[in-house]
């Protein structure tokens, strides 16, 4: 092939690309935080003694896990307006990403909670703590510690999933890269640069999670 790589074409767009990175990071950070919260609550609901809560949580998790993300986004953005609920592209994207991240995290977190020894609950009960207090002060942190590596992986996946929200016109790195592609027709260069940017961001996220792991979960275990 005689294709001549020319990355200089992209130079005028560096500010846009950086903006794309920033938007992607922002989108991921918000969705991951919300997803973590949803995940914890759902994991709790799945272990609750109320059947309704268990069924609701189970249905939510199964529906989200077994259908493509694109459909979820489409449903929120194109489908809900028919019911009179309308979201801006970014809000729709955040909602979809959070729900998605939450469902996958819930399963991981449930595994962590299951791994906490019964003795910990009993010690809490014997001290007179209420079930929610036991969960919040005794179970949660050790449980998260156990599954944090898996959870980090899930979060990095959420970062990569953000690229799909370009299909409902939410602005982030992929949509910006595609727009630049439209103007320059330098698909290879754009894809390579975008790949490197995604790689950098996911490395950054992974490193951040490792750091959190080291600082927040630093207590020694046997």
């Amino acid at each position: 092939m005689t294709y001549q790589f020319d990355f200089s074409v992209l130079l005028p767009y560096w500010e846009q690309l950086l903006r794309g990175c920033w938007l992607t990071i922002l989108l991921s950070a918000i969705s991951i935080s919300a997803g973590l919260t949803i995940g914890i609550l759902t994991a709790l609901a799945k272990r609750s003694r109320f059947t309704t809560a268990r069924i609701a949580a189970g249905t939510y998790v199964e529906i989200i896990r077994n259908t493509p993300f694109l459909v979820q986004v489409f449903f929120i953005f194109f489908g809900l307006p028919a019911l009179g609920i309308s979201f801006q592209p970014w809000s729709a994207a955040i909602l979809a990403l959070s729900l998605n991240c939450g469902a996958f995290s819930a399963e991981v977190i449930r595994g962590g909670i299951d791994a906490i020894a019964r003795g910990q609950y009993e010690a809490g009960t014997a001290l007179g703590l209420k079930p929610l207090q036991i969960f919040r002060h005794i179970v949660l942190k050790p449980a998260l510690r156990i599954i944090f590596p898996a959870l980090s992986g899930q979060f990095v996946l959420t970062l990569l999933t953000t690229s799909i929200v370009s299909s409902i016109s939410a602005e982030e790195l992929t949509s910006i890269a595609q727009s630049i592609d439209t103007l320059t027709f330098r698909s290879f260069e754009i894809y390579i640069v975008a790949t490197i940017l995604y790689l950098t961001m996911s490395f950054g996220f992974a490193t951040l999670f490792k750091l959190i792991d080291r600082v927040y979960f630093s207590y020694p275990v046997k």
Partner: protein
Amino acid sequence: MSVNPDQRSRASASADAPIIEIAGLRKWFGTFQVLQDIALTVARGERIVICGPSGSGKSTLIRCVNSLERYQEGRLVVDGYDLGAGQKNIDTVRAEVGMVFQQFNLFPHLTVMENCMLAPMKVRGTRKKEAQELAMRFLARVRIADQALKYPAQLSGGQQQRVAIARALCMTPKIMLFDEPTSALDPEMVKEVLDTMVGLAEDGMTMLCVTHEMGFARKVADRVIFMDAGQIVEMGKPEPFFANPQNPRTQAFLGQLLH
């Protein structure tokens, strides 16, 4: 024997009623009956040691006293609160009964100090500063105040068990339950935990203790109870109990223990 009659009478002087009353207690796990018609009355300040073969229901019995297990039949009254009568009583009783487990069950993500502060702050609403002082007082009591800022995993087994005792004491319980508190320990560490427990006993704490440490039973117990197959088979003062057990099952068991 170091039972101090003065202290004992003082403790029971405040209220003459027994602190624990168990009558006709029956419990099943599914179709399997773990507790068969248990009757036991414990006076304030009394120290009771429970022994018996594995699976005989010792743990289940003392876990009932703390409502960690529910029972199906009978009556169980702790410090005047009937445990059959609802959640409210259960919560009150749990805060008044301290429990020490075989596996310590310290919270690994909290320091020794934080382990001790958690329940006073969350259950009693004690302020942080006071909870700290409380924790330090009881940690000093079990001679481990210097380890207050370490995490459980950084302590030896014996130290961990002493922290577990201090943690229970921080709720200033009226009764302490011990479920084989030394059987997960190395031989050397057993002694330091037993010493701590002897100290507590000398202060007049009401204690129910599942253990096979006969030396400890001889030293502090007011009564020794032998359980087998969910029943209290024999009960008595330590000296006659060990020297001259009446029931053949007790005899066989004590024989094995001292092989």
